[in-house]
């Protein structure tokens, strides 16, 4: 297990204004890492928040979420040595800034 100690954690990115509080992700989360906030988003719904730990990057929340743009799951992976960043097909992802917890 030592090997994994060196890794950053996966985590969900929740765009709170896209959430409609249907609860599906909360129910499906294996580690019970999600919960419904008491606050309302701009559309007037409660919204899901990440408890801050427990995400295992399984993607279940994404797959059960009915809103295509509401949840992303970010999973850090150890970079393969020969794979450089210069591939044209790869898109630099800056969404990370939007993380709303």
């Amino acid at each position, binding site marked *: 297990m030592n090997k994994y100690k060196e890794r950053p954690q996966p985590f969900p990115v929740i765009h709170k204004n896209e959430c409609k509080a249907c609860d599906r992700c909360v129910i499906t989360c294996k580690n019970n890492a999600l919960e419904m906030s008491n606050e309302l988003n701009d559309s007037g719904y409660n919204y899901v928040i990440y408890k801050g730990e427990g995400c295992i990057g399984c993607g279940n929340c994404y*797959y059960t979420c*009915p809103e*295509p743009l509401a949840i992303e799951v970010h999973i850090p992976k150890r970079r393969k040595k020969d794979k450089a960043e210069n591939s044209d097909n790869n898109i630099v992802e800056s969404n990370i800034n939007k993380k709303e917890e």
Partner: protein
Amino acid sequence: MKNHSSINVDSHSKEFETKITNQNTNLDLEEFETKIIKKPKSINDSFTRKGGDFPNVTHYCAGCGHGILHKLIGEAMDDLDIQERSVMISPVGCSVFCYYYFNCGNVQTAHGRAPAVGTGITRAENNAIVMAYQGDGDLASIGLNETIQAANRGEKIAVFFINNTIYGMTGGQMAPTTLIGEVTITSQGGRDPDSTGYPMHMCELLDNLEAPVFIERVSLADVKQVRKAKIAIKKALQVQKEGKGYTFIEVLSPCPTNLRQDAKGAEEFIKNHMEKEFPVKRFRDKSKETKPLVRNESDFSMESLDKIFKVDRKNDVETISKTDFENVNVKIAGFGGQGVLSAGLTLAEAACSEGRHVSWYPSYGPEQRGGTSNCSVVIAGDTIGSPVVNECDVLIALNKPALEKFKEKVKEKGLIIYDSRIGEYKTDKKIKVVSVPAVDIATSCGNPKAMNTAILGVLMEIGKNKNILSKDAYYEGIREIFASKPKLIDLNIEVLEAGAKWMRENSK
């Protein structure tokens, strides 16, 4: 978390399930890249077609299955790299606005008609990958015929059938798939089979047909089922990518709003009730043994058209107007099958080949299938008014009812030619009456069926001094009529001449 650049990778990769459980320690982040599970590129980044204050939120209710399915289809489109080839058909129902979400060609259609529209698209554009996204009312009720028929033709369409046992958009009415006892706005005491029948099993129904390539029922009850659904959807779109034919995916989906359920309740309803009534399974997968269906390419060239219509532009005949030409009106009548219509057409073709104005008009409908039939031929020097002949110059009667019916309509100085088997007919009017042993004449040439041609021969002989139609014209008429059966041309010309010869020998 520290801000760092990450790489968006194929979200379908199984690797994302790798368990990462440990605490955050001092890490060299450069060693890591980030995989992001997020909406596929075949789903729009923002739903600008929807507009409004929240363009990044679907128009669906909280907990609705449509959004989940949209993502799954979008992912499969990404995985198979078919986004550019894809055409999504939006139906009528909650998913009427599918085109807000799918980043590909979009066509919105009338209620239930998606399979017909899909047929039109796939026939016109062989390379297009056509998807029809339909709800239970749309597909299994108003569009049931289109659904079954498109499936039976094996159209190259991927149908996604969202079964949530209810009409969503119109406010929760009973659907064809509503379960027995299920309460809806229009089945307030629960669906009663005595008055409303039973839930419609679409997969089972379509599985009776020969043509469909792939049929599977999936469920969106929980994440396990969702992931299974993804596999089925990808499989169906693989069939489309290869152009193999019809695929049908039924998706059991929650409608928490109309069924008044929360997420837990919806999951339980699908698992414990819907899946009992509609078993989740793969009904058919003929994708391996089915070969791609390739349609011919359209040919728009003048040469090919002229060829199939047998147009000879070098030997064109112009229609000439001759106002001094006295119109000739011919009525030909007899049993269907006696060659009434073809005799008229031969005469008309003859006139056409001489550049006359001419029209031919048949009695149509059931008469031509067995009863008496007749046709009118007008040969004129100028543009023809009515093509229907009542008062005629020439009556050709091939049976007795025909003679009885039309004899009074022959004008003074007119002509009646009839088959001698009818028996003797006399008239006080100034009408030339010729009784022709047409069958004998035709039989003497070896084909009793050509009796109509024998009578035309008689007509040719009688009219030869009146400069109406030349012998060449009659020959040409026969050549045109029998163009597709060249063997019969010489025979009929022989019968024609025999008819003329009989007339010469029997006229005073």
